[in-house]
């Protein structure tokens, strides 16, 4: 079968507009998580990474929109425009569009907003993105909790391998909203301080927001310098609990095994793991168990949640894009917030940013509903 690649990409985050600003921040081990007060979101202070409205308005205005878009739509449009421009691909009937989000325009349910409730339907969001750029195919919206962003890459690969498309643009995003924060707050899952994945003193998650996009293609003519091959992917359910991770890491372990099998690589061939690492006590413990079962405990590993927070339906794509650059720069980025191992099994957490020759990486994610996804990537080379 022809190889399928992750290619041009873009990150709009609290670090700035474009992947470069996010990568510079990470390389300097700077977090964008900050304490915030916003009574429209939570009655008490919280810690988050958000995109400044003024900057977003400016970037969105530069696109010359002819109708009004919601804040999330603006974010997705601004990111995807950059990726499409860099890809130099004509949007004909061989080009697909996948939108990855957990909650889409859920903020329109707030009673005082300017947009009708209809805008909360995810297919409407998909249509707005499609229409803006003139995609010929309907958007495929994927909403699979916190694995959405990484599962979207697997789904794009599958549609290309089936011959339905030659190229797929994936765009992913979720906002920091009262809807989301009040829910996680009710679970007592929010940390008031920047989160500490896998650390003994971890005290929960932070929710952050980003808009990210990437090109998935089988055509080597459209590769970026940093491109990676998507070697294997799998997504397995825990069949255990809808809001609690499996105590044996069953679904994640099975996902990793199946993704490795498809990739043709062994656990020993993996140079780096970009874990999910939300910094809740149960999630991080579950991941540690699954990685140990898969014999990956010595592979350098980080969670990027300490830089951006948990960006929900975007997180898997965001962290994969950073992982792709990590390979390209032959650099292992520090797992921000980590101090002392706080899980029952060993893991090789990256404590400071270091140079190392890298060829392959594994990206994993897990989410509500018991879902887990693992994808194996390798440098595309030139």
């Amino acid at each position, binding site marked *: 079968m022809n190889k399928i690649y992750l290619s041009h990409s873009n990150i709009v985050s609290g670090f700035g507009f474009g992947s470069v600003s996010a990568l510079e921040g990470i390389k300097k081990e700077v977090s964008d998580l900050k304490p915030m007060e916003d009574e429209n979101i939570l*009655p008490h202070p919280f810690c988050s990474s958000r995109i400044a409205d003024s900057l977003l308005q400016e970037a969105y205005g530069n696109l010359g929109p002819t109708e009004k878009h919601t804040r999330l739509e603006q974010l997705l449009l601004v990111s995807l425009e950059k990726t499409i421009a860099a890809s130099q691909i004509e949007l004909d009937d061989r080009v697909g569009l996948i939108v990855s989000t*957990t*909650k*889409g325009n*859920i903020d329109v*349910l*707030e*009673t005082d907003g300017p947009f009708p409730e209809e805008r*909360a*339907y*995810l*297919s*409407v969001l*998909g*249509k707005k993105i499609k229409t803006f750029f003139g995609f010929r195919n*309907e958007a*495929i*919206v*994927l*909403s*699979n*909790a916190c694995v959405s962003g990484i*599962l979207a890459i697997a*789904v794009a690969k*599958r*549609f290309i*391998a*089936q*011959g*339905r498309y030659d190229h797929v643009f994936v765009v992913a995003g979720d906002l920091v909203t*009262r*809807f989301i924060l*009040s*829910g*996680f*707050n*009710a*679970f007592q899952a929010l940390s008031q301080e920047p989160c500490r994945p896998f650390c003994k003193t971890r005290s929960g998650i932070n929710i952050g927001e980003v808009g990210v996009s990437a090109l998935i293609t089988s055509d080597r003519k459209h590769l970026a310098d940093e491109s990676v091959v998507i070697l294997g992917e*799998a*997504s*397995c*359910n*825990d*069949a*255990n*609990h*809808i*809001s609690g991770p499996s105590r044996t890491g*069953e*679904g994640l372990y*099975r996902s990793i095994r*199946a993704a490795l099998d*498809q990739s043709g690589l062994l656990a020993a061939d993996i140079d780096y793991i970009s874990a999910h690492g939300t910094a809740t006590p149960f999630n991080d413990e579950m991941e540690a168990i699954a990685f140990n079962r898969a014999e990956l405990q010595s592979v350098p590993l980080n969670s990027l949640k300490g830089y951006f927070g948990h960006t929900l339906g975007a997180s898997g794509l965001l962290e994969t894009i950073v992982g792709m650059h990590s390979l390209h720069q032959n650099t292992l980025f520090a797992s921000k917030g980590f101090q002392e191992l706080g899980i029952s099994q060993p893991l090789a957490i990256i404590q400071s940013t270091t140079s190392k020759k890298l060829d392959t990486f594994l990206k994993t994610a897990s*989410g*509500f*509903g*018991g*879902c887990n996804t693992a994808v194996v990537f390798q440098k595309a080379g030139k």
Partner: protein
Amino acid sequence: MNKEYRIQRYGHIRQGRISLNGIPRFESNETDFSIFIKSAYKNFDTQYPKFFKMDSLSKLALIASDVLLENENEKNIALALSNRAASLDTDRRHQKTIQDIENPFASPAVFVYTLPNICLGEISIRHRLFSENSFFIFDRFNADSLFEYANSLLANQKSEKVICGWMEFDQGKYDAFLYVVAKNGIFAHSIEEINRLYLTP
């Protein structure tokens, strides 16, 4: 390239009627969904107390999958479901509780259902399926995407069978359609046939 896969069976829950391969399994004149689905639960002697904690979308998915899988022995079954409203019915409930001026506190038991793929988790737990799960949103039933996706999962040995379908609950209205794609089966696995079965409750 692609092998020819087949559809083994299909089921519907629509307008007070639950059917398997077009044959009615349960019928009711009840128009209120919560009463209707509870009477279906009793009728099938389901005995699964977790059912009563679920939101409407998951209750619909649970009963639909029970009927579809009652004589199924295979456990390596992937799930690829879709709908239009995602989890909006429960999203509205959650939004209402956090906007309550007197008591603006979210309920974890409601919030956890504000994701459409939770119903895939409920089916997976009920039937012990440790397999591929994907939830897609389309503005109408989209046989083309489900057809390609099921072919891809089977061709890449992601599972032995795939349950595909439409699982919609919005403002009291419901429409469930599930079908099993496998190596053998009585119906053709084609876009035309999927659309025909969708319209044949």
